[in-house]
């Protein structure tokens, strides 16, 4: 036993640890230096414990990612933040939810998005209703009636277009503030800074989740391959042993048969 062969006066373990971590005062260090010079047991143990520390130093935890982020006082006090809650939702579900919300919103609003030389124009369905030909004033209805009596659908077209254009202008003038959502935006317009930040964060979250999943899967795969190889080698060894055993058994059986045959032949020869 190491303790029995070391004559250090004092608590050897404590001093050894203090020396190992260099968390020791100068006088104690000098005294232990002197002891080390003469004690091979302590030198060996110090070296071994240093080796343990080297191994421990190679044990690194995985990347934590971003574990939490507080957005506001109220949100944070209420529990987990929005971002931390978002982390727990799979990336595919986040994308599906975003598409669903966008699709439903667009459907409800009967959204019409147009991008041309005038820039980006977003128009809701209500402004289309204002221009729809089903909405007819009595004057237009009268003209439609007259046209149908005089010349049929072909004669109706020029008069209807002009009237509908006038009607559209009238509706636009009357309802533009309420119903028209045309928002001219410069072609070089960018999303607001806040939205960009949110998009960036969501993208980072998704990337991080994907990276983590890939790492985990790669690891599982490597472990599976290692396990499979080990299993294969074990199986091969087992097959080898079994074959050897079968061969031995066969050899013994053949030997026995040969001996029996020789005895039988000898007996036959003796009778003859």
């Amino acid at each position, binding site marked *: 036993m190491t303790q029995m062969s070391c004559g250090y006066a004092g*608590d050897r*373990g*404590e001093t*050894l*640890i*203090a*020396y*190992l*971590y*260099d*968390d020791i005062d100068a006088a104690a260090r000098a005294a232990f230096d002197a002891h080390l010079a003469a004690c091979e047991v302590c030198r060996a143990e*110090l*070296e*071994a*414990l*240093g*080796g*343990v*520390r*080297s*191994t*421990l*130093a*190679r*044990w*690194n*935890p*995985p990347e*934590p*990612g*971003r*574990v*939490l*982020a*507080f*957005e*506001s*006082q109220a949100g*944070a*006090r209420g*529990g*987990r933040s929005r971002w*931390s809650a978002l982390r727990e939702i799979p990336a595919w579900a986040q994308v599906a939810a975003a598409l669903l919300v966008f699709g439903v919103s667009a459907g409800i609003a009967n959204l019409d998005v147009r991008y041309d030389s005038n820039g980006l124009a977003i128009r809701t369905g209500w402004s289309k209703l204002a221009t729809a030909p089903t909405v007819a004033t009595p004057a237009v209805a009268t003209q439609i009636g007259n046209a149908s009596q005089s010349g049929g659908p072909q004669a109706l077209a020029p008069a209807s277009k002009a009237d509908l254009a006038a009607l559209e202008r009238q509706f636009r003038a009357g309802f533009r503030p309420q119903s028209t959502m045309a928002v001219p935006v410069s072609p070089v317009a960018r999303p607001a800074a806040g939205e960009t930040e949110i998009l960036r964060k969501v993208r980072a979250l998704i990337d991080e989740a994907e*990276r983590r*999943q*890939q*790492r*985990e*899967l*790669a*690891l*599982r*795969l*490597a*472990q599976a391959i*290692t396990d499979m190889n080990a299993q294969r080698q074990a199986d091969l060894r087992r097959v080898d042993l079994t074959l050897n055993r079968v061969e031995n058994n066969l050899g013994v059986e053949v030997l026995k048969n040969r001996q029996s045959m020789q005895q039988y032949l000898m007996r036959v020869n003796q009778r003859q």
Partner: protein
Amino acid sequence: MTWTDEELVARSISGDADSFNELILRWERPIFALAYRTIGREEDARDVCQETFLRAFRALPGFRGQAKFSSWLYRIALNLCRDWVRRERRAPVVQAPEDVDLMDLAAAAEPSESIEDLVARKDLARVVEKAMALLPEEQRTAIVLKEYHGLTFQEIADLIGCPLSTVKTRLYQGLTVLRRELAKNTSVPKGSART
């Protein structure tokens, strides 16, 4: 401008969420590492890490600066780890999703780390985790705080609430057990002691 922890704490108490975010950014990695090495499970360590910051945030108004913010945070995390160890929670392993080509995913692993490196690192981690799991909680905590967080013996004693000599004894006993266990499973380098 770089604020000290204490300044960020003061600003957080006065309602500045960004300051607390800064504290999280500063300390999430050490706290996660502490939890991971104490618990040995990544997902649970992440939970402990999150819970540590949530508890810290809620208790922030009561923080009077008697100790360093980091020591206070470590204490919260260690208490949570202790709770976890008592509960002995076990999470399910990661399941590979269906219709996914594992070979492709394996090939797309971290470009800086080959599969062999990854396996070697994980093997070492498994060996160390296995050896660490044999230690009593007090010895494991002392080793983690000293080895990976560089706390002095006195800081560990203050944090855990035990005499200085007890910390050294726990470390000595813990390292001795690790030496024996690691020798069974790895070739511990014979390099000179790190001082």
